[in-house]
Structure formats: C-alpha cells, structure tokens
C-alpha cells in the first residue's frame, strides 16, 4: 500500500506557482482597451470612407444659379420651356409676375410636360395636372409645384437661384423673392 502512494505522480502545476504567461486582471483590461480602440478605429474609418464615398469630388451638374434673359423677353401668359432640359426650370410669366417653376412633379418626381393648347402641365407617370401657376388641380399630386428664388441681376437679366425654393402650402409664394413683379 505505501508503495502505491509513492507511485502516484505529483500534480503537474501547483496552485501556488506563478505563471509568467498569465494575463492577470490588469493585463486583461489593458488588452481589452487596446482591442476596443482598434475595433472602433477600424469600423469608424470604414464608415467614414463609405460616407465620404457618397459625396463625389466633382459634380458634373449645371450650376444652381443661372441667368434667364431679360424680363421684357417674356410675353404675358407664357410658359418658357427653354430652361427645362438644362436647369429643370420652367420660366412662367402670368399677368403681373414672372416666376421660376420646378419641373419636378410633387407626386413621385417625374417631369411633367407643358401642354400649351390645354394650358396645363401634365405628368406622364400618374396623370397629375398643374395649372400655369403651378397649382395642382388633377390627379394625385398632393401639392403645387415648387418655385425657385428669382431676382434681377446687376446687368438687368433675370437671375434664378435653385438653392432656395418656395412652397405654396407653407404660404411661401407670398415671399417677395419667389416672383418678379412686371
């Protein structure tokens, strides 16, 4: 029996023995911090690059402001479609004012056509119709076309600024910048 006890091998590691490779409590937190910072930096950098990608370096689009001839060029009650293709704007002159209408349908964003004989803008997508003033009167469009800021430049030409738009439903067509008195 005593010989049996002797043959029992000793425990390979005694609990009291210190292991140099052990992480320890402080070491754990140190590595955790490093890990999280690295992770946040990597994902943060990744998403920064993605977001940056959404804003192109060069934009090949027409300028947001343009000159649209002299006020006297426009006949009364006339829709000028010359600036539609390049600037997405209709220049309209009614009895007492000139204004710049956006060509984006307020229903789902198609481009309506000006039907001169019927005196209305008509959208080919869902049939919304707008009067010459931009007021919606048929089809599903929930609100009138938007107007852009319009003013007279120093050389006497009309200056249209597309960065600022005026919405009828907010009462902004009363704003003096939204039309030109003639």
């Amino acid at each position: 029996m005593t010989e049996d006890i002797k043959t029992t091998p000793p425990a390979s590691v005694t609990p009291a023995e210190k292991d140099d490779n052990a992480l320890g409590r402080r070491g754990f937190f140190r590595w955790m911090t490093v890990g999280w910072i690295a992770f946040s930096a990597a994902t943060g950098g990744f998403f920064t690059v993605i977001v940056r990608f959404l804003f192109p370096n060069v934009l090949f689009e027409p300028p947001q402001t343009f000159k649209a001839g002299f006020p006297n060029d426009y006949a009364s009650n006339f829709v000028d479609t010359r600036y539609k293709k390049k600037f997405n704007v209709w220049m309209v002159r009614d009895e007492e004012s000139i204004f710049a209408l956006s060509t984006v349908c307020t229903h789902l964003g198609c481009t309506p056509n000006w039907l001169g004989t019927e005196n209305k803008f008509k959208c080919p997508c869902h049939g919304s119709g707008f009067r010459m003033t931009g007021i919606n009167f048929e089809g599903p469009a929930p609100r009138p076309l938007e107007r852009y800021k319009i003013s007279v430049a120093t050389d006497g030409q009309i200056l249209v600024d597309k960065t600022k738009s005026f919405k009828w439903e907010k009462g902004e067509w009363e704003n003096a910048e939204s039309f030109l008195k003639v």
Partner: protein
Amino acid sequence: MLQTIKDIIDILSAPTVSFTFLTVAFPFVFPPTDWFEKIHRKFGIWRLWTKPGFYGGMFAITFFFVVGYFDPNFHVTLTKADNFPIILMIYSMFITIWWSMYQAYLNDERLENGLKPNEYNDPDDKVLVWPDLVYIEFIALILFMVFLIVWSILVAAPLEEPANPAATPNPSKAPWYFLGLQEMLVYFDPWIAGIVFPMFIIIGMMAIPYMDINKKGDGYYSFKERRIGMFIFMYGWLVLWLFLIVIGTFFRGPNWNFFGPFEYWDAHKVVPLNNVNLSEYIWVKTLGTGLPANILIREGIGFLVLVAYMGILPILLAKSWLKNYFQEIGPVRYTFIMLFGLSMLALPIKMYMRWLFNLKYIIAIPEWFFNI
C-alpha cells in the same frame, strides 16, 4: 361590324365601366353565399369551370388578341416587347385558375354525394418529396430556363435612350409587375399606395393562415367548403391586382390618360378633371367659407371619416351582421381581419370616389406630407 365591336369594347373597357362590371359580376363567378350560388347555377356560369368553359375562355382571349393584332392601334401596344409577359400572364392565369376550379367543382360534387375528394381515393397513396416533387420542379426549372434563354436570344431587350431627368417618356410605365401599383398611385398619396399598401399586402398574405381558421378543404381542391375566403382572395388577386396590371398595360396612354384598346394614343386627348379634397368640398363648396387656418379643424371631417371607417364600422359589424363570426374567431383575429380587409376595400372605394365625385384626398395635409 368589326369596327362596331371594337367601339363597344373601347367603351366597355373604360375603368369606370369595366371595373364596375367585374366587381358586380365577381360574386356570381365565385359565389360566396347561397343566393349567389343559386344564380351562378341558374344562368350556367358554373360551366366556365368545365371543359367547354375552358375552350370558350381560351377562344375569347385568343380572339381578342388576334383581332387586336390586326388593329393598327392595338397592334402597337400588343407587340411591344415589354407587354409580352402580360399576354403570357393572362393565359397562364386563366389556365391555372380554370384547372384548380375545375378540380374543385369535381370535388364539391363528390363531397355532396357523400364521396371522398378525388385526392383521397387511396389512403395509402403517398408522394415523396424526393424524388417525386423535386424531380418535377427540376424539370420545370430546366424547361423554364430554356424558354428564357431562347426568348432572350430571339427578342432584343427594349432599351431606350440614356435616362434624362428632364425628359420623362410619355406615358412612363413601371415594369409590368408593378403596373398595378402604379395604377393604385393614381388614386393615393405615394406613401400609402407605395409603402403602406404593399406592406399590408405582404403581411396580410403571410397572416392568412392565422386569420382563416377553416380546417376544411385542406389537402384537396374545393370551392364550396371555403367559398367566402376564396371569394375575398380572388377578388383582391384578380380584380384589384391583375386587372389593374391589365389596365396599366393596355388602357393607359400618353399623359396617363385612359384609352380603349383600339383607340389611337392621342397625346392631346383632353380629359376634363378637377380633383377636389374633402375639406374643400365641406368648407368651400358646402359651407361657403374659406378653409380654416387650423389644419386639424380643416381636416377634422376627414379624420372623422377615417375613424368611422377603420374604427367604428368594425365594432358595429361585430355587434350586428358579423356577430356570430366575431364570437367564433375572437377579438384579436377579428381586429386583424378587419384591418386588412377594410384596407383592401379602401382601394375600390377610393377609386369610385375619384370617378364619381372627383375626390382627391379624404385627409389632405400637404404641410405634413400626410394625405389619405
């Protein structure tokens, strides 16, 4: 003679006429109650789901397309490469619906005579997923791929000039499977017809097994044992979805105006329309005052209509006409059936209000992008 038929078809296919006709005729084709069933039998409409009915239906569809092919105006629409899937769809829908209704009617007759349905002839008859089902699917898949490859080789893709935001084609049509949605968008605000309704359609179809707890007709074709459920589903599927696709494809022309199939697509067709919101009807036309400045007061009646339709109507129905049904299925199921059912019914109601009263929106708050 042929010209007269064409003119009649042009008049009949106006959405006001054709949609009304389909809606009124629908319960007689898929009878949901005994009364409709009696007329369905009396006038021989049930023969549509027999073999002569199949040949008759196929002949009518083919006749329409053949006549259309030789018509100079319909020829243009019909031979467009984009519209070929719709012609296939009309045929395949008729064939599959006829095939299931044919078997359902055979089974209904057997069940009435105290026999078991056709599918239960041999209780030991089993079909294994592998190989029986998977092989059929595999062969169908190969055949369909061959068909698609041949089609794509033979028919050139209908590409157009590069997209230009300043020039929208007139008419501008969605892909054929979305034309039903585009037709819904004519009557609703984009967020309702483009987001809420499509979500309701998908979620509602997923919820069908939880709402329809009828255990009958499980594993075999039958119409009579679940006729109300089938009537509702088929109305939504055939009239509110497929028929709207057909309207969008064949009957909508320049400026999204309506044109009969044999009518020339005149871009200058004048259709007088003047759509008015409910608030304008009430405040301006009836009371003769201006629109109130407060938005909630202005649209108050619209909100009342909405609450009455979606909230009070189901409660009234549960206490009167649908009392037994309500007790049978319980309040939770009833609420969801009403939510999906009334939303589905809102589409034809809104379409009719547009056609009859030029009503644009029941609640119109463009300031908040909230229009119903």
